[in-house]
Structures are given as C-alpha cells and as structure tokens.
C-alpha cells in the first residue's frame, strides 16, 4: 500500500540508496557509517585533502531553508570526495516564484546530477523527493521540518563514541525545544538503536511533544533533575520565534529554568560531555563558560560532521551496506 521508510532508503539487499532517517536502520548499519567516517577522518589531515571516490559525480545542495554549518560541511565533504558541487538556495529562488517542489526537482534532475542533499521546512520533504527522483539519484536528508536530521544525529553519536566508546552504560539528556527539533528526533532514534542505557528529554511541557514517551525516552521538566548523573548533555537551540507562539514567556525565564550553567552541570557525571548542534545562543540555552569549557565538544561535532557526511555520501553513491559485496 505504501512505501515503508526502510524499503525507500535501502534497496532489497539492504544497501543504502538514500539517507532519509535513522529510523529503521539497525545497529550494525549505524556502526558501519561511523567506521566509514573513521576511515575518512585522516583525509582531512592530509596536505591534499581529497580522495577520488566521487570523481565525476555531481552533487546538488538543495536548500529550501537557510543553513550555514550543514550546507558548508556537506559541500566540503563532497569536495573532499572529489565530486562537483552545486549549491542551490531555493529559499530565495524558484519556489518563491510559485514553482512546485516537484518541478524544481525535475528541473535540476534534468541537469544530469547524481545526488541531492536536501533541506526543507516541511516534515517528509526528503521522503517525497526520494520517491519521485530518477532511480540513479540518491537523496540525502539534511533536515526536513521537525522530522529528521540524520547526518547531525550520526555525527553526534560518532562524537559520543569517540569519547565514550560504548553506548550501553550511557545516560543522555537532550535539553530544550524537543517539539520543533528534527535533531532531537534523529538523536533519540540513533541512541536507542545503539543501545544507550537511558535517554532523557528535558524541557517545559510546551516544548515537549505529546506522547514522546512512546519513543522510549523519559521526560523531565526540571533541568537539575534531568541532569542527575548523565554522561552526555545535548543542548538544543531555542529559536527566538518561540517567544511569540506562547511557548515560553521570555529568554530570561527560559535561561533561569533551562539554561545550562556550570552549577547545574555539577549534577551530571564528572566526565560529562556537553554537546550542541549549533548555532548556539549564549545566555539563552547555554552559559558561555560551559559552551567554551573543557567538557564542551561543540567544535569537534562540527569537524566530525565532515567525516560523517563523506561516509554517508560515498555509501549512498556506491550503494553500500551491511551483509553483501559493496
């Protein structure tokens, strides 16, 4: 009746065709992505920062929403794989002229491209595009609405793995605007699949989706309680427009309740890691002392983003996966 996510993003042999969501991918597959990223990490440290894996391929960064970090790291990752990269910023382009999403895709497809890296404000946009592109084109989801941001989640768990090794003993708290966060949803799926001991979401009720417990997380509305004994804290960005939608009264009050300070962090495990997908709002969700402090791995996340994106792009382009000849 309908294409299940997993048959859409993996072919019948389990090989990656598109990378749309972490959901439905098993643990071995997520580890393969991270192992592949490991193998690319050294490329970045060479004098000639390139490998010829995607030479002759054309990758289009199709961004219907503005982005700096994600777009540039995708671009860098593609260039290090020797692909040709085209950046199309639709937020200021065709759709504002009334072109439909499908027409935009068809037009760029006609330029004989091999991969779309898509960011879109609507949940499900990457699935929609994957379902309608020509069979040889791979789609990588760079964030769709509130739904998923799978490469961000992968670079986050990759960063955690680098520091902690194994996931089974880890308690992870994700703090802030869970409701609007595609990052949180993908992180929850990735951490769950990798076997994290406990996943907590922390925030005011207005920013926690109804029935989020069904995803296997525990919910806290008090930051101090939520941080008790955690090994990893992932802070989410609070978007300023949330003040207008009656989600929270003010930045000031939000910081007083949910801002991550050194004092609050003392409740966490002594070797806690502090993460943030960026861009950070200093003094809104996180104190500068914490963001720049020794427990923060925020800038490492950015570097790891390149290796993870190289891994995912090369795997999708070469239809790689667990359990068969790649």
């Amino acid at each position, binding site marked *: 009746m309908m294409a299940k996510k997993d048959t859409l993003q993996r072919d019948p042999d389990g090989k990656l065709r598109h990378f749309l969501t972490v959901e439905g991918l098993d643990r071995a597959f997520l580890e393969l992505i991270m192992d592949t990223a490991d193998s690319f990490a050294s490329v970045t440290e060479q004098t000639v920062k390139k490998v010829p894996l995607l030479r002759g391929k054309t990758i289009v960064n199709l961004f219907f929403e503005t982005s700096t970090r994600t777009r540039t790291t995708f671009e860098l990752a593609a260039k290090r794989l020797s692909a040709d990269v085209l950046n199309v910023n639709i937020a200021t382009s065709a759709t504002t002229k009334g072109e439909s999403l499908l027409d935009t895709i068809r037009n760029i497809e006609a330029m004989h491209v091999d991969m779309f890296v898509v960011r879109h404000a609507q949940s499900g946009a990457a699935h929609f595009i994957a379902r309608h592109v020509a069979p040889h084109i791979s789609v990588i989801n760079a964030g769709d609405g*509130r739904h998923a941001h799978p490469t961000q989640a992968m670079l986050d768990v990759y960063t955690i793995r680098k520091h902690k090794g194994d996931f089974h003993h880890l308690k992870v708290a994700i703090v802030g605007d869970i409701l609007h966060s595609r990052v949180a949803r993908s992180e929850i799926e990735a951490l769950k699949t990798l076997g994290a001991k406990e996943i907590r979401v922390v925030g005011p009720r207005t920013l926690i989706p109804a029935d989020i417990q069904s995803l296997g997380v525990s919910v806290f509305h008090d930051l101090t309680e939520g941080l008790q004994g955690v090994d990893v804290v992932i802070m989410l960005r609070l978007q300023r427009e949330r003040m207008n939608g009656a989600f929270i009264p003010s930045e000031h009050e939000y910081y007083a309740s949910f801002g991550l300070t050194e004092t609050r962090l003392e409740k966490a495990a002594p070797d806690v890691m502090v993460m943030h997908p960026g861009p950070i709002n200093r003094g809104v969700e996180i104190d500068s002392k914490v963001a720049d402090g020794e427990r923060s791995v925020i800038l490492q996340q950015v570097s790891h983003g390149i290796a993870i994106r190289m891994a995912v792009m090369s795997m999708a382009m070469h239809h790689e996966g667990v359990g068969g000849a790649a």
Partner: protein
Amino acid sequence: MTEKLQIRGGRVMDPAQGVDEVTDLFIADGVVQALGKAPDGFTPDLLLEAKGCVVTPGFVDLSARLREPGLEHKATIRSESMAAVAGGITTLVIPPDTLPVVDTPAVVQWIFDRAKAQGFVRLHPVGALTRGLKGQDLSEMSALKAAGCRAVSNAHHPVANTLVLRRSLEYAASHDLLVIVRPEDPDLKDGGCAHEGPVSARMGLKGIPYAAETVAVAQVLALIEQTGARVHFAQISSARAMRSIWRAQEKGFKVTADVAIHQLHLTEEALEGFDAAFHLSPPLRTKEDLEALRVAVKEGVIGSVCSDHQPHEPDAKLDAFPATEPGMAGLETLLPLTLALVREGVMTLPRAIQSLTQSPAEVLGLSAGTLAPGSLADITIFDPLGEWILQDSTWRSLGGNTPYWGKTLKGRVTKTLLEGRVVFDLNFGEAI
C-alpha cells in the same frame, strides 16, 4: 421512459420500515407502489432481476464535495454525480465551501439547475452559516432557506468568535434550519496535519490534539443549551468527542452525528512513510478511537456514515506531506467499506444500510432513505459479494486521491435508480 417497473427476487432491505426479506418491488411513475405483492392490474414495462442482490433505498451522503462552482480543476458536478450513482448514492448533501461560497440564493439556484441538467442525482446544497464562511457576519439564512437549503454550516471554516457562533446558532434556530458543525477549534488545530500522538511525535508532524475537537463540541453543546439550535456534528474523529455527544443525547439534546467511513478503517499508523493519500481532515486518530467510533455507529450514537468525499487534482497531493491538501475521494468506496464492517462483525447489514439511508435522511428531514409505498423510487441494487479492483477502468470520480487504489474491494453496485429511472447500470455504465 419506462412507466412501470418490477425489481424481482432481491433481498429488499429498508430499515425505515423494518423490512428485510427476499421479495419484489413494484414501481410506477417514479414512485414505489408496493412491496411483495403486485398492485392490481400491474404489468411491468421493465423487469429488473435482483437475485442474489440487496435492494435498498438510494444512499444519502451527508458530506460530499463536488467542487463546482469554482474548483472544476478538481472535479465537477457531472463527474462526481456519475461517481455517486456508481457508488449507489442518490442524494448528496454538499458543503458550502465552493467558489463562490453558497451564501446567496443565486448560488443555490445555480447548483440546483446544474443538478437538474445532469439529472441523475439529488443535490442538497448546504448554505453558508456566515457570509463568505468568514465567521463575521450572518449569511442571509432566510433567503437561503427559501432557495431550498435545509441546513447551514461553516464547513471547514470554524467560527472562531464565540459570540458570532452563538448568534448564528440562534438565527438559524429562528428559521428552523439545521446547523451542521464540523467541530474543530481553529486555534488548537494551529495548522496541524496529523493526530497529536505517538506517530506525529515520531514523524515530526504538527499535531492536531483531541482538544481541537472536544473543545469545539463542548462549546457548541453549551450554546445549544442556550439557543435551542438543532445541530448535527459532522465527521467526528475522536472517542472523546463522541462521548460528549452521547452524554448530550442522553440528557435529551437533539443532536446527531456522522462519521466518515475511512475513520472506521484507518488509524494514524497509516501515515508512516508520509503518504499524502492519508493526509485527511479531521486526521486519522488511534486504534482506540476507531474502535469507539465503530461501537458508536453500531449503537446509533453516531447515526450516519458518510463518504466525506473530497476529490483533488493530482498536484494537490504532490508535495511534502504537510504541504499537501487534506481529504480523500470516497463516493465509490462508501459501500464496500461499509460492508467490510458488516463482514468484520461490527454491525448488522440492516444497521449498516440504515446508516447510509434512513439515518442521514432523517438528519435533514428528507423524504428519501426509504422504500415505503408512496416514496420516490431512489433505489440501489448491489451485489454484496461482488469483487472489483479500484483502478482507472472502474473509477469515475475525477479525484484519484484514494489510498485504496489498486485494492480489491467487495460489494458492488449493479444498478442505481433515481425516481424509477435507471441512472447507473454496471453492465452499461451510466444510462444517461
């Protein structure tokens, strides 16, 4: 035209009369003459064999959008009338959200004229409750009634201002007009596109909470108590709202309700994979809601089952899920999906037929929905075991937006009659 008609050997089922027996039906001059025994001197000009089939009053659908006037790129009165009779539906109640809105007698008359010109289905346009459906000024309800409207509604445009809602209910009551309410608090809906629950939480779809429906029902019930308005709640989607209506009925409120047939078959789980065919308004809810709504139909708390037919052009569904237009085309799946409930043991066949005939006719006070002698001979004959595949060659609606595409369905209309005239014949297509 045939004057005298005999429908022979079918299982005649007319819940309004408590009839369920294999017998003959005699029709003359478009009117049912007798059941069982031929009237004296009756010699049929045409004999219709109905052996193995069920013969019922033509179905009355309380909510079907035909998209004309104004949205002919989606569907037309002609195309959807053909779909309706192919689905056994002879009376269509059509919401006022056309372009222009049905808020003047001219539009009402235009729709009646159009229906008459096509001549094979009965249309009942519902007038707008407020002018332009804007929720600010009352429509000219007296004029709409004089033009032939039996009910008024604001359709999918809930009246946000409670004072305007109160006054429009009062005004409708003073003209003895039924008010059809699709209960949904617009602020609580807040642009949502899926039931607020585990599935929307996981998929990152903006949720429509139960409260959007329950708050609206509670608000209207409180206003009915003050105004004495006659209200019909349309397309109930949640168990909670249904229970509020049930309690109100037990307290003696004259409120009725209907449910879209797909709400009795599908749940939020269907949204998995972002298939826009399942983007519906009201949204698909949970298994518990589905079960409770099924019981409510069985017990008659929800008297009527409707198609909630909303045909769309293909482009309307070709976008990211939240950006697509909600709704499915349902005229031709109404019967097979209702019969599926009978096969699943949810309700008896007579009750199922009642929910498609007598109950919706009573909501609007129509004379349709029965085969009692003297009634207009709007009749549906269907083969309850007839299987068909939903595909281009069997589908008549211009709206291809159905999640049942390619599926095999059970229950097939063989003939539909309007005032004794065969307007659909499976063997010949429409006999127009």
